[in-house]
């Protein structure tokens, strides 16, 4: 596990968490009341594509926090565009497993103290120019978005 960011960023992160905590306090303790509370948090959007550029729609996603590589903290499916959004709640290396019909990959995404992807992170090695452009576009557009590419062999048959 790695920790990214300076002490200042760490302090900002703590302040942010404190703000979230403040925002999350119930405004009043009402007996038998149902409460729906909204809060904002830094989200990370994963764009999962096959190496052909085709989105991995409805692929199985598991997200592992830096402190527990065994138990996923988030699970779900990518949407029709191959996207999946989750909230990294701590700095460190977040592992994202994307699988579909017998093939997949695990990407390690370093998250800095304020929840953004580490500026040193690149995941475009070995990609075509088109794919590199898509990665850059995703990061520029989303700030915290990232595009991941996966091999396409045997995508329609699950292995045991």
């Amino acid at each position, binding site marked *: 596990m790695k920790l990214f960011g300076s002490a200042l960023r760490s302090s*900002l992160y703590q*302040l*942010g968490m*404190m*703000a*979230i905590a*403040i*925002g999350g306090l119930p405004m009043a303790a009402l007996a038998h009341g149902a409460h729906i509370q*909204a*809060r*904002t*948090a*830094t*989200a990370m*959007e994963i764009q999962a594509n096959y*190496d052909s550029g085709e989105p991995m729609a409805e692929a199985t996603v598991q997200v*592992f926090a830096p402190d527990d*590589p*065994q138990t996923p903290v988030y699970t779900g499916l990518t949407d029709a565009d191959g996207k999946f*959004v*989750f*909230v990294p709640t701590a700095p460190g*290396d977040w*592992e994202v*497993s994307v*699988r579909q019909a*017998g*093939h*997949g*990959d*695990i*990407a*390690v995404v370093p998250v800095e103290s*304020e*929840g953004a992807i580490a500026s040193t992170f690149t995941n475009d*090695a*070995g990609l075509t120019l088109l794919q590199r452009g898509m990665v850059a576009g995703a990061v520029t*557009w*989303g*700030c*915290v*978005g990232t595009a991941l*590419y*996966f*091999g*396409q*062999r*045997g*995508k*329609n*048959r699950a*292995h*045991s």
Partner: protein
Amino acid sequence: MLMNRLLTQTAIAAALPTLLLACSPQATTDTDPNAQSDPAEDTTAAAADGEGELTIRANGEDFVRQGFVTKDGWQVDFDHVYVTLTDITAYQTDPPFDAETGGVPKATETVVISETVTVDLAEGDDSAEPILVKSVEAPAGRYNAFSWQMMPAPEGPAAGQTIWMQGTAAKEGETIAFVMKLDPELAYVCGDFVGDERKGILEASETADLEATFHFDHLFGDGEAPADDDINTGALGFDPLAAIANGNTLDVDMAALEAQLTPEEYQTLMGILPSLGHVGEGHCEETQLVDS
């Protein structure tokens, strides 16, 4: 004064997440085989945080254990699928090695099993566990990269062959008993295991697995997948092999395959072999293909 300071700090704390999120696109609400030489495993570096038992397994998946229908309609069932592994290496890498991007794993810890081991991927019944290759004592830690080489077996039932497949193929009342003997030298370098569970996470005094997974559907195709799926468009299938069978028997080695298949079919076969090795569902980088 104290109240003003408190109000100011509260306002900053409340506003900060919004400032930090200014460029965020979205926000969410909560929501043993036949060991063929003396054991020679060795490990590098002393175990700083204790040791555990690291078990290496080989898996031919249900395609080998249960049989399957090829892309061209042959029901293939295996009696034996011998594969010979050597120089098996488990790595703790930092940064994590990604086989999709290639390169060399940057290891902080390495465990090497240098002996050559032949296993039968078809051993056991339909629900058999992946086949044990070797267990070794290893330093605790995250083994997130894995490599192995494949070479002709020095002895045993598959002597002289890297991959020995024996079984039957049946289609429309015809049954062919086949033996395919392949002797290329192969090498795979892989990242983290991808599957239903994580592997290679070794705690002190505990056990962990790593798995060399072989996808034989890449060779024969998959009758359950669409004809235009990559798994089938890139596969050899069994029709070309049935065409060179001697009656109801096919017993071929690489030389016979090269001589009897068309050049295109042989090249397809040679192109598929480097893609057989995986770590679960995760791809590996093939770094060597030598036709012995």
